């Protein structure tokens, strides 16, 4: 096994271990919220569990997966050794140490502030320090991705950076921008409070800085899925990528539109004026552009594959696709969930409509469907695709992989559709118990139980996923090829404009947009400081 493979496996297993624990907690949380009697059910335990579930899923699974997959893409797509492997291992150790440091106070119930922090609630300083270490580790990853792409471009002047690496580096650039908000919040506002250095905290400023991060972080999680859509799925379907340029445009647009839009999480907050909320809402709408570009391009790529495989007619190519291959199946299921999740998102991002679903189960349903559904199912597909190349052993039973993907998609739909409905009925999210004897609330009960069944299906799928990966480490499995190939474009990019081969221009655009969208909204806290909220310790 080459060193980059060990590096990738270490990262992915760390992420999937966090994922497995978080799945168990998630099901238990739904059990608590249902009319059925759950074991160990107290509000204290519920919020502790929500904190652990959120940190594990949103920070650990994602960061370790993105880093591990990034290293893999850098070495395989550029066909040269990853630079700075020592630094990569250092970043891994830092991130792992950070994850464990954050886990201890969560387990001791000294950091029950949820993964979104909610100042002036303040938990143990160790919790925040641990998460800072994870982020520092990811910054090293960003630097290595930029160096890897820079070195390749220096040695290949005028050539187009391979799309998979272009997407990975776009993610690294975006992540550096993204983490500025939460890093400023944690380092300058929350940590001083957690360490007892300050007694009050500016909640408005904290929430604003967190919102800076809050939307772009979702794209940080999402981009590996998009890399798989563009560079892996068409190849595994036996076709070609319809347009390399569309892929580059999509990654660039994600970089531009992910950042100056976070205020759509603060529509109901009083600290910002309506004009800035309107501006950021308008920019949020533009996120639909790269999403629709991708749906169009990948559908076209799949049509190419289907027709190459003998499919004819208007829809005959769909039947001709090799659905037995996990990557193709996962892409189809991911797109299916994307329609529902994206549709729900259009409601969330609309200034007026958001008021109806704000802080209800609708929101939880939206991000579980987009992230837990579309993104994570592609994480599974990526893992199934690259695991044989990492371990050298093929899966002895691909049908189990297909079963796992189907279970995940079905479980996610069964779980989140009732949540959407309950959200419209006004069911609050992040609430431990409901009075099901209340005639207004009683009808919710059956839908919560229904969604719990979806959660159980997801748990079964998660267990099967871990099993499916584990058996590819065993010797009796068949030997696999260890070379990774990415999809070729119908028109290979012999020459691409400089703007689609690097990020200098787009960094300038992001800077201008961020100044417009967040300049005054952040400056106002310094021009006219609000009375600080007293720090409320929960450790």
């Amino acid at each position, binding site marked *: 096994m080459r060193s980059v493979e060990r590096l990738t496996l270490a990262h992915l297993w760390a992420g999937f271990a966090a994922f497995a624990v978080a799945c168990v907690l998630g099901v238990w949380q739904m059990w608590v919220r249902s009319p059925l009697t759950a074991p160990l059910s107290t509000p204290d335990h519920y919020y502790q569990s929500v904190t652990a579930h959120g940190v594990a899923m949103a920070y650990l699974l994602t960061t370790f997966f993105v880093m591990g997959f990034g290293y893999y893409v850098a070495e395989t797509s550029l066909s040269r050794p990853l630079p700075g492997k020592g630094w990569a291992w250092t970043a891994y150790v830092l991130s792992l140490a950070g994850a464990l440091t954050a886990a201890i106070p969560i387990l001791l119930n000294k950091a029950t502030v949820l993964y979104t922090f909610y100042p002036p609630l303040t938990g143990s300083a160790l919790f925040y320090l641990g998460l800072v270490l994870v982020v520092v580790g990811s910054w090293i990853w960003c630097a290595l991705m930029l160096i890897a792409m820079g070195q390749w471009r220096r040695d290949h002047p005028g050539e187009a950076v391979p799309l998979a690496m272009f997407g990975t580096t776009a993610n690294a650039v975006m992540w550096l921008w993204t983490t500025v908000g939460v890093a400023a919040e944690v380092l300058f506002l929350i940590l001083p409070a957690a360490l007892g250095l300050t*007694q009050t905290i500016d909640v408005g400023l904290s929430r604003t800085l967190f919102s800076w991060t809050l939307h772009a972080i979702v794209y940080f999680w999402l981009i590996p899925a998009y890399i798989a859509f563009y560079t892996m799925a068409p190849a595994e379907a036996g076709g070609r990528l319809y347009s390399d340029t569309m892929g580059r445009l999509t990654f660039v647009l994600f970089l531009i539109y992910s950042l100056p839009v976070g205020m759509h999480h603060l529509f109901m907050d009083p600290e910002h004026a309506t*004009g800035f*909320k309107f501006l950021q809402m308008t920019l949020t709408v533009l996120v639909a552009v790269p999403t629709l570009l991708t749906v169009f391009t990948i559908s076209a790529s799949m049509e190419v594959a289907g027709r190459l495989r003998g499919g004819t007619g208007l829809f005959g190519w769909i039947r001709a696709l090799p659905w037995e291959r996990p990557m193709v199946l996962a892409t189809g299921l991911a797109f299916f969930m994307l329609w529902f999740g994206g549709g729900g998102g259009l409601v969330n991002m609309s200034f007026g409509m958001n008021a109806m679903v704000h802080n209800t189960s609708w929101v939880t349903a939206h991000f579980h469907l987009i992230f837990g559904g579309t993104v994570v199912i592609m994480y599974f597909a990526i893992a199934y695709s690259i695991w044989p190349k990492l371990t050298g052993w093929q899966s002895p039973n691909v049908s189990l992989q297909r079963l796992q993907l189907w279970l995940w998609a079905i479980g996610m739909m069964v779980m989140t559709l009732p949540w959407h409905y309950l959200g419209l009925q006004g069911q609050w999210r992040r609430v431990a118990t409901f009075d099901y004897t209340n005639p207004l609330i009683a009808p919710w009960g059956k839908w919560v139980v229904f969604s719990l069944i979806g959660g159980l299906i997801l748990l079964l799928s998660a267990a099967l996923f871990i099993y499916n990966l584990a058996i590819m480490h065993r010797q009796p499995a068949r030997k696999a090829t260890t070379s990774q190939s990415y999809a070729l474009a119908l028109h290979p990019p012999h020459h691409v404009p400089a703007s689609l081969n690097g990020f200098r221009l787009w960094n300038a655009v992001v800077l201008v947009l961020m100044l417009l969208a967040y300049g005054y909204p952040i400056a106002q806290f310094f021009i006219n400081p609000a009375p600080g909220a007293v720090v409320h310790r929960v450790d």
Partner: protein
Amino acid sequence: MLSDPLSKYITGGVAALVVAAIILGFVVVPIVQGSTAEIDPWTAICRSLGIQAGSPARRTPVAKTGARPVSDVIWDKATLERLNHPNREVGAQLAQEICAACHGQNGVSPDSKYPHLSGQSALAIYKQLHDFRSGVRQNELMSPVAQALTDEQMIALSNHYASLTQGTLDRRLIVEANPQVDRLIRTGDTARGIPGCQSCHGVGAGGPMETPTISGQRRQYISTQLHNFATGARRNDVFDRMRGVAARLTDDEIELLARFYAEQ
């Protein structure tokens, strides 16, 4: 940097959209919304920018009656800093001279009517002393005592009792009780709108900062206070938190809870 047509189209498109959003968000929409709420265009624009307070779509409501707070204690930075800098000698001396008669030597009360103070949080004691002084909490013995104290003396006393460790109050976690009490403490009763006691009084719970420690408190004192909250005789709890809870408890439950916490 704008060397190719594609990048020109993208940046041009984004710029056009941003300009349109700025015109709509900061000018057109506020003026239209403001006109229906009888807000002049300039004020509406200023409000949409956040340089004037209020919404461009609604007139700012004017309260006709003054607010009547249930407590005058404000947990601001200045109060907390003063609480962190007590005069310990004054605290010990005053405790001996004034408080010990009822609250016992070292804050361990000899009479079930009077609460233990030893080990109680400084915030909790300060809040109650302040409330006795301002009159929002009344007691024939405590009100005149507190009215004779200065703010500095209250801070000194609060910290004195908070610093004592030999008392009966501590922050142990609740381990077990009879099922009825256990449920009330851990989860409360959702059907009656009663949160679990532990949601605020537990270790590291998310309750208000002035929440007192009640483990090991005198039984009769807890019972009396719960009844006072239930009847409204005591009303210095912000947002009716304790009045709301106590009014929904039965007399039996109050006695069970008082006994349980007293035995902890």
